[in-house]
C-alpha cells in the first residue's frame, strides 16, 4: 500500500526538483554553471591545488616570467602568482556568495512583503528600496568599509550585501505585485490558505527565477565591488583575492613593465567569473522570457530557409516545391 505512494511522491519530488532547476537547463546556464563550479572547486581545494603558499617569499626568484616551477611567474618578492590566484579565488567566491545571500534574503523579505502588502507600508518599503537604489553604492561602501580596521571577509560581504539588495527587491516587488492579483493567488486566498503559505508555497516558486537572477546579479556586483575595493586598498585583506593581487601588481609597476603574468590572470579570472554569471543570467532570462532565446534561434533557422524575420511581406514559394527541401 505504501510502496506505490512512495513512488509517486518520489516522482513528484523529482519533477519538482526538476522544475526548480528548469531555469538552468539550457546551454548558456550550464556553461555558466560549469565555469562557476570550476572556480568554486578551486576555492574549496585551494590548499591542495596551489603549488606554493601564496605568501611564500623567495628573494631569489623575483619577477620571474612563467616557467615550469612557476606556471604564472612570480611577484616582486618571489611569491608564486598561480598560488595567489588560486587562493584569491576563495575570498572572491566567499564574499561574492555571502554578499549575494545576504542581499537576496533582504531583497526577498522587502520585495515580497512590499509587493504583497498595499498602502503606506508597501509605499514606505518601496521608497526605502529606491533610496538604496539611488544612493551611489561604492562611495558608501568605501566610507563604511573604512570604519573597520581590518574587516574580516564576512563583514565586507555584509556591507556589500546590505548595499546591494535594492535592485533585487525592486524586481521582486514588481513581480509580486503582478502575482498578487493573479487568479491562482486569489484562488488560494478564497480557499482560506494562510498568508505565510500563500507566500511560501504559491508565490515563492513562481519567483524563483527572479530570485536566482537577482542572486546571480548580486554575486557579480559583489565580486566587482570586492575586487575594486581591494584594488584601491580600501579593504586591506590579509588573505589574497584577485583585487589584492592587482593592487600589488599595480603598485609594483607590473603594468608598466609588462609583467603580464602578474596582472592578466587575476583580471581575466574576474572577467571569466563575470561571464559565467552573465551566462547563467542569460539562461534565466531566456527561461523567464522565452522570446529572448527563440527570437534569435528562430531568425537563424529562418535564414537557413531563406526567410528574413523582418520581412513585412510574406514570402511566396510557389515555384520550388517544399517537398524537395525537406
Amino acid at each position, binding site marked *: 500500500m505504501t510502496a506505490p505512494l512512495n513512488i509517486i511522491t518520489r516522482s513528484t519530488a523529482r519533477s519538482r526538483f526538476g522544475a526548480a532547476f528548469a531555469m538552468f537547463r539550457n546551454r548558456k546556464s550550464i556553461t555558466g554553471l560549469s565555469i562557476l563550479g570550476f572556480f568554486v572547486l578551486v576555492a574549496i581545494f585551494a590548499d591542495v591545488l596551489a603549488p606554493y603558499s601564496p605568501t611564500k617569499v623567495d628573494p631569489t626568484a623575483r619577477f620571474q616570467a612563467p616557467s615550469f616551477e612557476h606556471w604564472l611567474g612570480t611577484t616582486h618578492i618571489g611569491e608564486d602568482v598561480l598560488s595567489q590566484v588560486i587562493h584569491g579565488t576563495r575570498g572572491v567566491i566567499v564574499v561574492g556568495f555571502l554578499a549575494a545571500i545576504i542581499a537576496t534574503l533582504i531583497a526577498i523579505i522587502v520585495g515580497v512583503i512590499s509587493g504583497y502588502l498595499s498602502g503606506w507600508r508597501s509605499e514606505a518599503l518601496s521608497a526605502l528600496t529606491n533610496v538604496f537604489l539611488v544612493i551611489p553604492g561604492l562611495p558608501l561602501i568605501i566610507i563604511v568599509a573604512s570604519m573597520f580596521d581590518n574587516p574580516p571577509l564576512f563583514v565586507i560581504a555584509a556591507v556589500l550585501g546590505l548595499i546591494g539588495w535594492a535592485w533585487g527587491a525592486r524586481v521582486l516587488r514588481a513581480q509580486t505585485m503582478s502575482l498578487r492579483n493573479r487568479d491562482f493567488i486569489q484562488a488560494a486566498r478564497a480557499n482560506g490558505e494562510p498568508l505565510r503559505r500563500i507566500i511560501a508555497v504559491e508565490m515563492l516558486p513562481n519567483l524563483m527565477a527572479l530570485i536566482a537572477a537577482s542572486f546571480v546579479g548580486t554575486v557579480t556586483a559583489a565580486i566587482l565591488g570586492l575586487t575594486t575595493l581591494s584594488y584601491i586598498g580600501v579593504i586591506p585583506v590579509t588573505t589574497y583575492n584577485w583585487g589584492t593581487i592587482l593592487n600589488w601588481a599595480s603598485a609594483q609597476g607590473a603594468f608598466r613593465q609588462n609583467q603580464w603574468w602578474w596582472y592578466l590572470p587575476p583580471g581575466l579570472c574576474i572577467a571569466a567569473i563575470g561571464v559565467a554569471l552573465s551566462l547563467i543570467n542569460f539562461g534565466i532570462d531566456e527561461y523567464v522570457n522565452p522570446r529572448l532565446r527563440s527570437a534569435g534561434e528562430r531568425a537563424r533557422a*529562418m535564414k537557413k530557409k531563406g526567410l528574413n524575420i523582418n520581412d*513585412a*511581406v*510574406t*514570402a*511566396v514559394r510557389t515555384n520550388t516545391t*517544399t517537398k524537395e527541401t525537406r
Partner: protein
Amino acid sequence: MSNALLSVQNFSVIYDVDPPVQAVTKIDFELRRGEILGLAGESGCGKTTLAYGIQRLLKAPAVITSGSVVFHDASGDDIDISGLGVEDMRQFRWDKISMVFQGAMNALNPVATIGSQLEDVFEVHRPNMSKAQRREAVVELLDIVKVGGQRRRSFPHELSGGMRQRVMIAMALALRPQLMVMDEPTTALDVLVQREILRQISDLRDEFGFSVIFITHDLPLLLEISDRIAIMREGEIVELATAERIWNNPQDEYTKKLLSSFPRLTGEKGLVKR
C-alpha cells in the same frame, strides 16, 4: 468577374518550422465588391492565417506555398498580390486593403497620439498632402467614426476600448480602401459597444462601398452581419454559403456542430440543433 474584388485560388500557407505546419490548405474563394464575408471557426483553424496571408502580412516562418491572390482594382487593373515586390507591396497595403485588428489597446502605438498615427498613413501613402491637409483629413476621419476630431491629440490610453476600436476603424478608412479585413474587431468589447460598432461598420460599408472580411469565432454574430460565411476547419474552408443558408440549411457536419454549440437566446429553451 466585374463583380469580384478578390479572387483567391488554390491558396496554401505553411509555417516553415521543424516539422512544417500546414496552416492553410488549397483555399479557393471569391470576394465580391461591397460584400461582407464572414470567416468563422475555432482558434487555430487558420482563419487569421488566411486573412493575413492574402495580403501577405504573415511574418516568417510563414510561407505561401501555392495559389494566387488577385485583387481586381476599381481602376480595372488586376493586381496579382503574390507577384508584388516588397516596395510595391508596401504601397499597395492600406491603400487597397486595410485592417482592423483585435484588441485595439495593443494595436495602437502607446506613445504616439492617435492623430499622429492617423497622419502616418497619409505621410507614407499620400506624400503630396500638406501638413494642414493631413490634419484636416484626420479630423474628418475621427468625426466620421464619431470619436470627434478634437481627440486628435489624445493618447491611446486616454480612450476607452470602444473609442480605440473606432480609431482603428478610422485608420482603416483613411485611404478609402476597397477591402477591409477585420480580425475579431469586437471580441474584447462589451455587448452594447459591440453592437454599436457593428452598426457603424455596416453604415460605413453602405456609405463607402468597401468589402469586408470579418473574422470571428462568434457564429451567431456573424450570421447577423455577413452576406456570406466561410466556415473553416483545420486550414480548409469546409463550407461557404450565404448566411441564411448556413443558418437554415447547413451542409457540413462541422458547421452543424458549431451551430449547436450556442444555446438559443430566444425561442424554445435549448440548443440550436440542425
